[in-house]
């Protein structure tokens, strides 16, 4: 299979938060159309990596580079990254009081459309567009007139992240534990949605604790992040090995790539 162009290149990335170094030199290269999974123990820095890629201001980059579509992403504001096609499905989606889901989605979509020089969608056109997306990922519209994530169950919040992914159609989708807290049916729905969105032009970086999700979404590469470093990368079989053996065998200075 012909390899795609490099979409994202993370090199020697070191990141601190609140004065503590969390990422201690991370290298990841993702090409167009690839699906990468990142696994690793709690607190190893998976969300930190995801948040830094999205541009969260609380994280300080100490060293290293992040290049996306050939551009230095670290110089870009979060909204500029989003408009360039970077999307993060949050591990802990945020509640937004008073703003309905559909209003929020339309504001976000129109911000992207403005960037691309496309006409903004009015509420009626947007509703039609939204209906299609809801149908495609098997969600009903009952959540659309409720304030964003407010009072949503854990699973509803995660599915809502996937809906945003489907609406905003990014080039690089980072999913931070979107599978956590989902029941079996919801997990399948999410996996199906991701598989539908998979195409040669769109790459995924999927943070997960469970091999279960990877049964439905077959990754091209699996990385293990431990204590701020990628300690091992491999194919889909690595996920199965981790499921069986845990992480301890990787920690004792074993650095394999």
């Amino acid at each position: 299979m012909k390899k795609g162009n490099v979409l994202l290149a993370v090199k020697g990335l070191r990141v601190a938060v609140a004065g503590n170094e969390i990422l201690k030199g991370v290298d990841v290269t993702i090409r167009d159309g690839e699906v990468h999974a990142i696994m690793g123990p709690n607190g190893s820095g998976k969300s930190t990596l995801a948040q830094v890629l999205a541009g969260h201001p609380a994280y300080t980059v100490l060293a290293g580079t992040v290049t996306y579509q050939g551009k230095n992403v670290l110089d870009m504001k979060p909204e500029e990254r989003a408009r360039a096609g970077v999307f993060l499905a949050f591990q802990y989606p945020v509640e937004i009081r008073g703003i309905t889901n559909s209003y929020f989605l339309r504001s976000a979509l129109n911000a992207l459309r403005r960037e691309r020089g496309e006409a903004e969608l009015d509420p009626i056109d947007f509703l039609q567009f939204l209906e299609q997306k809801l149908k495609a990922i098997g969600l009903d519209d009952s959540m659309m007139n409720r304030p964003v994530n407010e009072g949503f169950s854990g699973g509803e919040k995660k599915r809502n992240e996937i809906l945003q992914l489907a609406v905003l159609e990014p080039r690089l989708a980072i999913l931070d534990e979107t599978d956590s807290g989902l029941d079996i049916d919801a997990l399948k729905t999410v996996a199906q949605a991701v598989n539908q969105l998979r195409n040669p032009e769109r790459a995924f970086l999927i943070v997960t604790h469970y091999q279960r999700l990877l049964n439905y979404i077959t990754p091209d590469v699996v990385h293990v992040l431990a204590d701020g470093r990628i300690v091992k990368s491999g194919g889909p079989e690595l996920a199965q090995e981790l499921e069986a053996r845990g992480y301890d065998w990787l920690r004792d200075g074993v650095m394999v790539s």
Partner: protein
Amino acid sequence: MAVKTGSVERLVGSYHAWASNGASRAPAWLTELRAGGIARFGDLGFPNMKQEAWRFTSVAPIAEGTFALAKAPTRVPTLDDIRPFLLLEAGPRLVFVDGFFQRSLSTPFLDDVQSLAHVVTHRQDLVRQHLGQYVATQDRPFAALNTAFVSDGAFVHVPAKATIAEPIQLLFLATGNQVVTHPRNLIVIEREARAAIVETYASLAQDVYWTNAVTEISAGDGARVDFHRVQRESSRAYHVAATQTHQGRDSTVNFHAVAFGGALARHDIGAVMAGPGGRLILNGLYLLDGAQHADHHTTIDHAADHCDSHEYFNGVLDGRSRGVFTGRIIVRPGAQKTDSKQTNNNLLLSGEAHADSQPQLEIYADDVKCTHGSTVGPLDPRALFYLCSRGVGEDDARRLLTYGFAAEILGRMEVAPLRAQLDAIVRGRLAQP
């Protein structure tokens, strides 16, 4: 704060001049009510900040100012003049200018939506039965003063089992400078009757004046009232008001209060749940800027069992403005199965804005559910990042989140055309497209 007694004496003096002149033809019971009001005000004087209920609000600008009792306007505004302040195109409407009823701008409905002055003579027994029965003046100098000067205001009466289909508009417009008005409104919704009402205070110019309003609302057994209060006074005005509701068994009151205006605004909202099974939503928003000061002092009195009260107040404070919220909840002995919920959230948009929030729960029954919570702070940085991560620019994200803070309150209004009008006003204030 030193209150000059001179201003109290001046007001008492102006009462006597007024009472012996134009107001002298009133029926005896009304004269008596007024006399009681002025006596009470004379005893109490203006409140000061040593008093618990006035801890955060100084009324010095009112007490030390000189406000003449408003006279009938020499130039009555036209319908075009008032149109910007009408939230509904059609329906029953009562318009008052400087406290005086304007028949030419109004569309009364039978004797049921009328000026109070009119019904004081035409429906004396009904008015007498209700007027002054709900609002407490004992420890409230401003309500006492309003009672002393009772002469006109809005009167709404919905007979038992009747429904007034269209929302009723009550508009109080100020045109004078350095004057005081004492609008007095009486709303009586009888057993199983329904009505929606919007009461607006606004001004045609950015004048300095003082509005001292009182509204009493009685909701009979099984009645439902959707009451909206919109305070859009001049940004240099002083607005003091008391609104008191009284609910019978199984009645519903949805009370929405939105405050945009006034240099200094104080609104006492009182609700008495007198019969079992009552439901109350008390839903408020204050949007302040510059040096505005708004104080909402709410008291919900659960006097009967099995009543629900849900209170939500949001404040959006910019500039050097200050918002004060007091949420007093009283659950009387025997008011079992009370379900009461209170939240007050304050959004500070500038480093100099300030909010004080104080819940006061007094619970004398044991089988009740009472929760309360309040927040004061800037925009949630997590929400801001969340929006930006979806491609929304930072300024747009700030505006959107700020709007959401207000929209949360407006979203509880069930009368769609009113909600839409208020939404447009809020968007205008917050520059939200």
